[in-house]
């Protein structure tokens, strides 16, 4: 027979190991690496929050299909030719543009290869971007707002809106 004390130690150790395992799962498979900083300190707070630029001005892909898209450097330069042109981060942007170098933005929101998300139907149903991307207009640096690896997040919302919950809606 195990003593109650030893028993609780074992329970604790196992629980700790279990918790550690879950963390591993989350880190290893489902969560993107968000530790690194973006190559240019872009702030959604300044653009979408303070200056109230429409999301679709830069992410027009949501109206046309699956991918929201990252704006091209030319689009950035459309404003920054003049706006804040002497700030160090903007100078880095201009340098890259003039040298024809792409900016390798760090990926923040990641969904599995077997998930086929399409922005268009969501935008067409007037689902606010914040529903999945959080208070993006308040984020100086973008972090994932919800766990997109959690299918329940998608399915709950689909149920609320009487949207299809057939597996083939997203998996194929």
């Amino acid at each position: 027979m195990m003593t109650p004390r030893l028993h609780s130690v074992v329970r604790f150790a196992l629980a700790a190991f279990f918790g550690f395992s879950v963390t591993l799962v989350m880190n290893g498979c489902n969560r993107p690496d968000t530790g690194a900083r973006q190559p240019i300190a872009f702030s959604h707070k300044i653009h979408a929050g303070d200056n109230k630029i429409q999301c679709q001005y830069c992410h027009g892909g949501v109206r046309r299909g699956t991918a929201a898209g990252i704006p091209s450097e030319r689009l950035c330069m459309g404003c920054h030719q003049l706006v804040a042109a002497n700030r160090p981060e903007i100078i880095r942007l201009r340098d890259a543009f003039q040298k024809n170098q792409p900016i390798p933005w760090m990926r923040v929101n990641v969904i599995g290869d077997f998930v086929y998300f399409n922005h268009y139907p969501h935008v067409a149903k007037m689902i606010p971007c914040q529903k999945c991307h959080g208070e993006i207009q308040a984020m100086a640096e973008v972090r994932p707002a919800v766990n997109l690896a959690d299918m329940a997040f998608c399915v709950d919302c689909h149920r609320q809106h009487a949207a299809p919950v057939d597996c083939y809606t997203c998996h194929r």
Partner: protein
Amino acid sequence: MDLKRRDFLKIIGATTVATTLPGCTPKAPKSLIPYIIPHEEIIPGKSVWYASVCRECPAGCGVNIRVREGRATKAEGNPLHPVNHGALCARGQASLQGLYHPDRIQTPLLRTATGGWEPATWEKAEDVVLSHLQETLRQGKGRDVVWISSLQTGSLRALLGEWLASVGSKNLLMYEPFGHEALKKGNERVFGAATVPVYEFAGVDTIYSFGTDFLETWLSPVAFARGFAGERGFGESGRRNTLAYFGPRLSMTAANADAWVDVHPDMLGNLALAFVSVVVGEGLSRLSVAETTRISALVEGFGPEQMSWPTGLTVDRIVELGRAFAKSPSSLAIAGGAVIEGEFGAQTAAAVNLLNYVCGNVGRSIRFEGAESPGTLNTYADMDRLLRQMERNQVPALFLSEVNPVFTIPSSSGIAAALAKVPFIVACTSVMDETASLATLVLPIHTPLESWGDYEPREGVHGVMQPAMQPVFGTKMLGDILLHTGRRLGRAGSFAAPDFHVYVMERWKTIHARCGKGKTFEEFWVESLARGGAWETLPPQQVRLARTLAATDLCGPKDAPPLSGKTFTLLSSPSIAHYDGRGANKPWLQEMPDPITRLVWGSWIELSPDDAVRLGVTNGDRIQVSSPYARCELPAYIKRGLRVGCVAIPIGQGHTSYGRYANGVGVNVTALLDPKPSADGSGGVLWCGTKVELVKLPGKIALASVQEAESEFDREIIQEIPLAALVRGGEAAPVNAPSLYPPQEYLKHHWGMAIDVDKCTGCSACVTACYAENNVPVVGKQEVMNGREMAWIRIDRYYADKAATGAEREPAKAGFIPVLCQQCGAAPCETVCPVYAAYHTDEGLNGQVYNRCIGTRYCANNCPYKVRRFNWFDHDIPEPLNWQLNPDVTVRTKGVMEKCTFCVQRIVEGKNTARMEHRELVDGEIAPACQQACPAQAITFGDLKDPESQVSKLTEEREPRPYHMLEELNTRPAVTYLKRITA
């Protein structure tokens, strides 16, 4: 103790998951790289389509290439193109694997002193070419420079001519192994026109094929399959064509015939003459009295009585067949291809021409205006003459582009030795092949999908080619190389165009003048690019019977050679997958089963069942085949439907330096062939008729077959109905038997498919289209032998149950049926899945969720149709072949079950498009890849809930033809077959 077994298992389970999962899925890329300046045609996540021309064979079908984020991912037929009308064969589908072939040459290669290869820069390579040419010109040998090219028309042909003219040479040889030499000679003798006419199958009631495999490889198979199958099924008119196939081998085309008649290849012409004799003798011809009298004299001695014994048909049968042909409102007889290309090919073609002429088909189903471009090819005799010149050191420099004669012409012609006598050989090719490996310099060129260009498959059909994507490697367009070197050589000719794109546009100004009335050139050019080309209608061209036609031009030997029992007549048969061998380096084509033998990854020798019994041979036995020219070893395949005394070996395998997928697979049959050009005057390769001896050796050579069964075992998989029994609007079929499965309710759509077994030709275009669309992996020979091929759709072949040997033997008869997931309404697979990965969607699909599947394989075991495929391995796809993967479909990993989804990604896309355009779906808007590719239009997909949809009408229960496969199991499939019709 409180730690229960259940808790323990939970914890163990969780820790195991934790340790294994971090390595479970491929990591998503960490960074997102946007465009610096966005491409105006590219929307991330959206496909763009570019029209071009398929150059996998001389048929020149129009293709639309689907491009996602700058990468070509799918080739489909161009619905606007007058040759293929939207369909595309398996080889056309696989052109993408040529584009992304991992063995493509990436830089120019220069032969080193030790015989190896040294990569060179393009500047260096061009310098080498120019310095050698200048040296040749200094020696005054410019006129002996030779260029051998694959069939080209239009701009590239003109530029090749100009380039050669600038060095003073006229030696441009357009060579294709299947050069239609016999047919051209036959046309010249009978009509005075050494061309290849256009064959029109649409609207033709009676077709007699004299050994011509027009549904597989001959001339323009996609166009022919469409025209042919368009007259099959049970259309509104209630009419159906009939096809009789005369020849020694039950080919795929012969299996589509209503009657396959076993005739010796040398006797085909005589049989046609016997038909002519019946037609003119019975006054059924539509010609003047004078012409009839002349033709009667020509066929004197070829009456049904005289020809009955040599052809093996009874007199009555010949008379009956001749009469039926003449009395048919519209008929067509065809002779061409490897079976007739023996010693008497030209005579056979001429005799069949005469049959067409007396029945009034010339100018109707055979038209000489708008002739097919293969008519402009050089002959094998021209090639042979060139080889003799090379042997005499008369060729100072040889250029080759996209040809592989070392592989495709008979090896005993001495081509390798002849090439060794040429001091300077430049091979322009995208992949290394047997000919390029003997070159001095290899220039890697763009594949057609990366190139500008134009191609005219038949006169008046101007297809235009545009690059579907940026070049995969640092290759160059052949046209650009010609312009650049031509300019640098600085001799005659202007070579003024800065690049080949401009050159093509300049040349199209003449086409604009003819086809672009009322439009500026810019408008015309942009329209042509979008449409895939420009088409003009040509005035009819009448041909008359040539005055010089003599009886000797028509008749071959009077009697078939007797069976010696020792030697066999070799039929080398062009392969539907590999054509002349050029398809063998594409894994999709290697894994595409031969329609009749159902074998993959190899070559074999087909023996008739009687000969097999006589030699004591069974499937897979090692057979030594020896001809006077070579000897090789092949596995035996016992084939129902092969003339006794004949053996057949497929063309196209046995490569030695054609990349990782082709090398060492099978045997090259051309080594066995007689190297002499045919003596019938045509100068073609003797594809048929070489005499070989067989010796059975101990041991076996493995055959990889995807279907062992020859018989349906009375399961009525391919059902038939006589034409006479077809009545519209009969009694409604009985409703489904009661089922224990829960009833299904379909909310908005119920997807269904109708497959017309009468139209399906077995060509397997759908199979390859499915591989391309759905990222179906290729598993290789060993795994196929283990029964682990992954095809989501297959074409089963079943022979009619008749005696295969002995006296009571009847002509073999085979049928084809495409089998894919039947999307059952009461699906046996769904109920057994312990994790709900196989489930029923509310649109009637048997869903398969890969990320939920744990690989128990219960579903596959419970599926009566054997259409579920299990991933036993992660299938490695080498760079850059993986660029082709369809980004809309998950790449399945090891341990996951997969199957046909009715191309659910296309259904979703169709629904999304309709939603974005604020409209309802239109019937026919969504086409799965198999339906889209099908040249015969045998597949119809649509919504069964819509009573007006085409699929609902075809599968209506009151109709006589619809049936379900294995209906007695009451699985209630959404796939309905339409019965094959017997004449």
